[in-house]
């Protein structure tokens, strides 16, 4: 089922979050319509089970409504602010459920990795990405594959260095080094090489 393609426009998102802060139900609905497919996709990816993902999405939008007034203080882009909420709610729910999610025995989701490897792989998807995501995709693509994988695994599954090491059957020291190098390269790529 292909969800409707709704381009993410940062200005609109900002306006709607501001509206939600003023308890404007219509702005909130527009925010939901524009963002829920992406946020639901993210919740599904993390918690895997649709029923749990629905719960995460519901909790997340309750939080978005309640905390929209504090959005400006977060200093974040609107999409980042919302995905951070969804990610945290997903991890919270999994912790509460005491669930160890099956994450494909280390075989990380192919489509997600494909987007990181080649941002042009799916032009339709690429169109909907925020400018931050487009920039990140371009820089992810130039990382070494192993660096990309450990960073993706940690990000989507709330894993410590030790957890990642266990999943990939690697020494912890190696994982730490890969993550550190990967992040440093990303930083240099994203800031145009200003810092090493």
């Amino acid at each position, binding site marked *: 089922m292909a969800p*409707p393609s709704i381009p993410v426009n940062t200005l609109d998102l900002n306006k709607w979050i501001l509206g939600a802060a003023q308890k404007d139900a219509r702005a909130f609905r527009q925010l939901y319509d524009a963002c829920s497919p992406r946020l639901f996709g*993210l919740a*599904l990816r993390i918690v895997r089970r649709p029923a749990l993902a*629905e719960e995460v999405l519901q909790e997340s939008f309750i939080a978005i409504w309640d905390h929209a007034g504090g959005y400006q203080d977060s200093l974040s882009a609107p999409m980042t602010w919302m995905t951070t909420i969804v990610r945290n709610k997903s991890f919270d729910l999994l912790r509460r459920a005491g669930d160890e999610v099956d994450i494909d025995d280390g075989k990380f989701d192919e489509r*997600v990795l494909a987007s990181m490897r080649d941002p042009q792989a799916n032009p339709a998807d690429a169109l909907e990405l925020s400018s931050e*995501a487009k920039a990140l995709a371009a820089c992810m693509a130039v990382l070494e594959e192993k660096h990309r994988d450990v960073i993706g695994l940690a990000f989507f599954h709330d894993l410590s260095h030790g957890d990642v090491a266990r999943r990939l059957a690697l020494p912890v020291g190696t994982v730490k080094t890969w993550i550190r190098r990967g992040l440093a390269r*990303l930083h240099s790529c994203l800031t145009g090489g200003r810092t090493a």
Partner: protein
Amino acid sequence: MNLRGKEALRERLAAEYVLGTLRSRARRRFEGLMHGDAALRRTVAEWRDRIGAMAEFVPPATPPLRVWRAIETRLRLRGPAPAWRFWRGGALAWWRTLGVVSSMVAALLLVTVLQGPGAPAVDDVATLTNAQARTALLVTADRDRKLLTVRLVETEPLAADRVLQLWAVPRDGKPRSLGVLGAGRELSLPLTAQAIGADVALLAVSLEPQGGSPDPNGPSGPILYKGAWVSVM
């Protein structure tokens, strides 16, 4: 742990904090440092935008409608709309249609109503129609005699414990009860200026329990018939 002047370390810790690999004690210590260091908070926010954008690489999926419904209910974004709010938020076009059609029907019906010199004067009239636009009731007002006459033209049969209640619906504010309709094809109700002021645009009939709507704010049951309230002259 002192991070002042250690740019590379600040960046690395901020990045791992956002990624989630900074754990337990180290994480709490870092949060403590963030508290008193605005520049560090900004560094974290920058990293959040950078790697947080990874979340967008996930294929989107449309959530089922029930998720929005649940959110709406929990936040009380749309309280249960009272039955009498049916005309609110409606298009202006609806009012226009109603006005034109009703005036025409009213004119035709008036011919049959106004018979002989003994008949009450008609100052205002409403033809109330059902959902299929069939005329169900005719309501006329005689302002001099302060009398409202209700003629049942074609109404649905009622259960024994139900009654019809007539309402004056103003353009703004709550509907005002004009009275419960008793038995009989033709009824008279007292007409008060307060009940039917110039602001009344519509008359409506709701289905209610014996004695009328228990809700002081308006009808409690469904609206069965409605029609524009128009001045004859």
